[in-house]
């Protein structure tokens, strides 16, 4: 039913949507960024951040203030907000939230697996996991000796199990390079997420599907770009491309054959959305890199998500925008602390 979104959404999720819109209004504006850029030391930065929505989050920090402390505190704040949303959510929003955390869970699992294989202490590893990707079986990781044991014992219980099953049979888990494994997991995750959003229908599908398609294509481009000159074969590369994007199937096949950046650009000529992005890429150190261009596009799409109401995409968009803001602040803080101000304006502004 076409009107079902307006009718039913607010019953379950209206409070949270209102909350998230309020939080979004508290994101740093261009004026705030201008103020931050003019700071001379990290202490000034802290003072400026106190006037924004961040408040006194750095109040309990002892001297000296380092960039990593700022980063940890910001992440903790984001995590607090996210957990709050999650705890108050109902179906299907809670499944949506679980999907969102799967991405971070994949990173954590890879970290734990590689650490457990090298018999490192579990305590340190747990401290370094991304807080948004926490799951209850994390401490049990050190009981397993090989990846297949790990899978059977621990990971079967987590939401990541279907992704592992998609990728491969268990005996190939042992030989696989850890990065390839990470990318394969992420591919199945993205496809599952995309199908979930599509099945959900309504406004959520309208908003989330383009965002996820862009994410899939972006991964395909970046993987291609970064695998030039490495030992990754073309078939292996093709197996890592998520198939839920606009490039599927023709574009992906062409990309897999590409040898350098020029060939990639020619593939893109067929797709109107990405052509202007590639045009905007500068060369070498002067202009923007491809990744910067992609980040800007992502930010644009996320901001557009807020123009529609009654869908779950606002939460995704808000989390992503918050993360981008954290990255910006860390970048500015690093430039200030290293006194290297030439590129301080290369953060991605959020309109």
């Amino acid at each position, binding site marked *: 039913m076409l009107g079902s979104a307006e009718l039913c959404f607010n019953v379950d999720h209206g409070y949270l949507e209102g909350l998230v819109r309020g939080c979004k209004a508290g994101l740093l504006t261009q004026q705030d960024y201008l103020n931050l850029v003019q700071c001379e030391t990290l202490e000034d930065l802290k003072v400026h951040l106190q006037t924004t929505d961040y408040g006194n989050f750095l109040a309990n920090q002892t001297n000296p203030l380092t960039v990593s402390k700022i980063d940890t505190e910001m992440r903790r704040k984001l995590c607090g907000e996210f957990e709050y949303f999650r705890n108050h959510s109902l179906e299907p929003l809670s499944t949506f939230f679980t999907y969102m955390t799967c991405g971070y869970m994949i990173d954590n699992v*890879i970290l734990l697996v590689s650490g457990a294989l090298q018999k490192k202490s579990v305590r340190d590893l747990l401290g370094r996991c991304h807080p948004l990707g926490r799951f209850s079986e994390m401490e049990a990781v050190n009981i397993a000796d090989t990846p297949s044991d790990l899978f059977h014992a621990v990971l079967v219980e987590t939401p990541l199990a279907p992704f592992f099953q998609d990728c491969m049979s268990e005996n190939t888990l042992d030989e696989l390079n850890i990065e390839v494994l990470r990318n394969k997991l992420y591919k199945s995750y993205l496809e599952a997420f995309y199908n979930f959003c599509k099945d959900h229908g309504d406004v959520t599908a309208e908003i989330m599907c383009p965002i996820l398609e862009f994410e899939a294509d972006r991964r395909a481009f970046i993987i291609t770009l*970064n695998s030039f000159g490495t030992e990754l074969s073309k078939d292996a590369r093709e197996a*890592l491309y998520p198939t839920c994007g606009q490039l599927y199937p023709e574009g992906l096949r062409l990309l897999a054959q590409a040898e350098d950046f020029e060939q990639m650009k020619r593939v893109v000529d067929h797709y109107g959305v990405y052509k202007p992005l590639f045009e905007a890429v500068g060369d070498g150190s002067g202009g923007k890199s491809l990744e910067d261009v992609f980040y800007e596009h992502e930010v644009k799409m996320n901001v557009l998500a807020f123009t529609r109401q009654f869908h779950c995409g606002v939460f995704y968009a808000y989390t992503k925008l918050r993360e981008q803001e954290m990255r910006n602040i*860390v*970048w500015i803080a*690093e430039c200030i602390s*290293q006194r290297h101000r030439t*590129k301080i304006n290369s953060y991605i502004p959020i309109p």
Partner: protein
Amino acid sequence: MKARLKGAQTGRNLLKKKSDALTLRFRQILKKIIETKMLMGEVMREAAFSLAEAKFTAGDFSTTVIQNVNKAQVKIRAKKDNVAGVTLPIFEHYHEGTDSYELTGLARGGEQLAKLKRNYAKAVELLVELASLQTSFVTLDEAIKITNRRVNAIEHVIIPRIERTLAYIIAELDEREREEFYRLKKIQEKKKILKEKTERELEKRKVAGEVTEPANLLAEEKDEDLLFE
């Protein structure tokens, strides 16, 4: 003795030459160290900044890197270099094994990570060079101190000692010669006085007629023993 003096002087000249050569090399190394250290500052700054850039694009990959560490990729060999008899260690780096972090950042930030790897590799090479320079600096410093000490010792202690000994010997010899001479002269004087004394006495006796001259065989005109003339 003179030979010893000559030997000492030659030794001192040789050592001075060695010390000069070492000092020259020392100054060269010092200049290079200053240059390298300035370059080091620049390179480290650039490397730290590229780390910040990579973190911006790729997120936090530090844990991944730390987990996957196993063997060192860049290793160092020590070679020896000889400068005027002093052996200096020189470190040379070589690559071993493949890059185990080739696929890190495959999904995001690979370009920045590649730049980061290059920058830090440059920094490591510079560090190795700086290490060689500094060890040679310290070793050369020691060697120069020792050599200078030896040169000074020879110059201010050994050679003067030998010279003083030589001078003393020469002075003694001269003195003895003078003594000998004096003695001879004194004896001659005494002999002369004695001779004069006896002559005077003889004169005196002759005048008093006590002493006849003994018959002068040659002046005799008549010989009593001849029977027939």
